[in-house]
């Protein structure tokens, strides 16, 4: 068998990251590079970010002349169906954002246009997610298609909706098979009623793809159930977790510590955490709850906590950097993740590395990985509270959960994930 050549399309990439997507892309890329020849294209790469084993191209570092050889060879088929729309969506914004509902408008073919300096310039400044995100997504697709025409590869692999359009364009331009990786969907971000341009793009992309890789079986069910994608082409692959340097810090207070870590947005279920805390504290005052992170729900959550009289036992830290997060993990006794919809939930694995037993919602991908974690439906605050009280009082149970997590962790590597992904590639390119 020849070594496969893979063209990967990503949106954010370390060190320029907003959330978990970039970290997952890097983890998978590094592991894949051991098996395949890999080129990664992203809108923006740090100029001096040399990664071993694969080639990283940021459109911000590209010159107009670089595309000269392929100008004129391709018409943009997909754009014929999509009207450019003003859209503001920043998944990591701390204020409420509204997603404008838009229509796909069938129209005439869009004629080829020469890539201009301006098109490339836009990837050099501003936010990766921002007011002009829709323009960036479309421009990224055009340029990625041209770059693909210059590249020899066997398979194109695109990560999350911002790159799906590009993936489809590359497939149409080159005829190569398309693999789409779903790290999170609009369903996870905006709930059951999510519709609009992004939803349409995700659905269109997954329909055009040869294989869809969701990060969990849970997300796979969303792909088939919510987006109507044929289950036969869905292959869930769990994320890996980079080993972190773990340490433990002695708490400066006598109580146990239960941690919620994440953006304070409805889908992460912070309101449920508040309710769980309230239930636990009714029975056991020997515990403190910490809500780490920020987001558009912060102020209402603070007021709700005060209304429930949790102050003094329920603490808000606001945004924490990585170092502070690790300090917090090093003194945490129980990790609680009551997400309403969590495609994967890497943070629970990171907590597990610190030897912290987890209480997590069934509506999460990581629930499939951490077999021993105590689980409940996100809305079942009674059961969540019971799990926490059990872990606080039953040391044997606690040990069992930690032991099981250690075993599960051992299997959760990017190498394992990459091997499965390569098997999937081989289905398409034997």
């Amino acid at each position, binding site marked *: 068998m020849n070594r496969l050549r893979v063209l990967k399309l990503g949106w954010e990439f370390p060190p320029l990251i907003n959330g978990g997507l970039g970290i997952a892309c890097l983890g998978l890329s590094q592991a894949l590079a051991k098996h395949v020849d890999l080129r990664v294209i992203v809108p923006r790469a740090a100029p001096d970010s040399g990664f071993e084993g694969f080639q990283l191209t940021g459109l911000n570092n590209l010159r107009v002349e670089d595309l000269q050889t392929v100008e004129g060879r391709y018409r943009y088929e997909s754009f014929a169906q999509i009207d450019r729309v003003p859209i503001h969506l920043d998944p990591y914004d701390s204020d409420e954002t509204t997603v404008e509902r838009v229509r796909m408008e069938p129209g005439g073919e869009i004629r080829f246009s020469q890539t201009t300096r301006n098109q490339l310039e836009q990837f050099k400044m501003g936010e990766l997610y921002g007011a002009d995100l829709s323009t960036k997504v479309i421009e990224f697709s055009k340029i990625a298609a041209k770059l693909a025409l210059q590249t020899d590869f066997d398979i194109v692999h695109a990560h999350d909706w911002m790159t799906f359009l590009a993936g489809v364009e590359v497939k149409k331009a080159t005829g190569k098979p398309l693999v789409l990786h779903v790290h999170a969907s609009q369903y996870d971000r905006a709930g059951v009623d999510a519709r609009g341009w992004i939803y349409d793009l995700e659905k269109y992309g997954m329909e055009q793809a040869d294989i869809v890789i969701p990060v969990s079986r849970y997300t796979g069910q969303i792909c088939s159930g919510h987006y109507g994608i044929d289950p036969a082409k869905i292959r869930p692959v769990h994320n890996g977790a980079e080993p972190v340097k773990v340490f433990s810090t002695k*708490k*400066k*207070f*006598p109580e146990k510590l239960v941690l919620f870590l994440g953006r304070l947005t409805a889908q992460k279920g912070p309101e449920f955490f508040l309710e769980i805390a309230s239930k636990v504290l009714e029975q056991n005052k020997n515990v*403190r709850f*910490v809500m780490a992170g920020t987001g558009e729900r*912060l*102020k209402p959550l*603070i*007021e709700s906590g*005060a*209304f429930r*009289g949790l*102050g*003094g*036992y329920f*603490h*808000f*830290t*606001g945004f924490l950097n990585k170092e*502070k997060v690790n*300090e917090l993990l090093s003194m945490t006794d129980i990790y609680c993740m009551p997400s309403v919809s969590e495609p994967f939930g890497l943070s629970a694995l990171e907590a597990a590395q610190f030897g912290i037993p987890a209480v997590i919602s069934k509506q999460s991908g990581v629930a499939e990985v951490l077999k021993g974690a105590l689980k409940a439906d996100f809305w079942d605050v009674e059961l969540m509270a019971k799990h926490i009280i059990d872990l606080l009082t039953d040391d044997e149970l606690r040990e069992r959960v930690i032991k099981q997590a250690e075993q599960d962790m051992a299997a959760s590597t990017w190498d394992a994930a990459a091997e499965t992904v390569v098997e999937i590639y081989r289905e398409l390119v034997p």
Partner: protein
Amino acid sequence: MPDVCLYFQVHQPNRLIPYDFFRIGEHAFYEDDGVNGEILSKVAEKCYLPANALFQKAIRESRGRFRMALSISGTVIEQMEHHRPDVLKSFQDLVATGNVELLAETYYHSLAILHSKKEFERQVERHLDKLEEVFHIRPRVFRNTELIYNNAIAAQAETMGFDGILAEGVPWVLNGQSPNYLYRAPQVSQLKTLLRNVDLSDDLGFRFSDKTWSEWPLTPEKLAGWIKNAPGDVVNLFMDYETIGEHQWKDTGIFEFWEKLPDAVLDEDIKWVTPSEVVDLFRASKEYDCHWPTSWADAERDLSAWMGNVMQQEAIAKIHKLEEEVLAAKDPDLTHAWAKMQTSDHFYWMSTKGGTDGSVHQYFSPYGSAYDAYIYFMNALADLQIRLKRIREAKAAAAG
């Protein structure tokens, strides 16, 4: 023609450090000493020192006919002792003229009366002791934090032996009557209530520099004329001392105004009197029936500046809930740290009101938002709880 009674409030709170979660259990000093010293110095330079000098001069040049009252909280006296003894000395000199009456209040400028009579009495006693020690004076008239007042508080002040109490002349309680008389609360026999003349006091405190105000610019002669033509026995001008030079900046002409006001008033044959003189001079023939607590804060003139939202309500309830345990620990430092957290400003900064009042709350806040104020306060409170728990456990260990 009424007399005129002038009283200024002098107070500074102890602002907390940004007390984040990671400090809980190990950082037992909650206050931002640097910031508190800095703000005291700033206010001293802009207001306390020049205003004290101004009134010294007014007393001297009027040969004692100019008189006024100050209420100086225990927390600001401590800050002056600690950071600026020279400023305290300037207050002592002013009081030593004999023409400046001091009023009693809660040492910690707190809302204790609303939560615990015992703690309220403890704080008033402590304040009396402090005034005795620093100024060698024992006040006869009481003023509660931010003029918080109702029938029950008046009765409490009488029980504690005061002859007079200050209150806001709230229009909806006055019901058309003039604030320029002495009033009596129902169920008190001796104590007299002095009501703030809201209109004239706020002309000086708030509208003075407002160029859109139809009476701008306000001159000492104009104000003296208004007082002369006012009905009643006494016009009570009550306001923050910081009005001079801090809330109304120097360039508004506030100092020139106050330099001339004492004489302008005397020229109209109006007498300057202090609260205890008012109590001695006039009969309280009318009843002022105030059931709900009122104050001089915000448009509502009620408690909503400190207890208007759930964060404020929780914070204040929880700090007072510790009373029994704190006092039982018999640790003066711990008690003091706890009591300083009762200072009303902590809760004032947690207000989420909007509009003009909201911007006043924000102007005085050392924190980024009401939510930060709440979070830092509750974290410090958690630390206090842990200290109490440790004391409890140590005691149990010693006993067992």
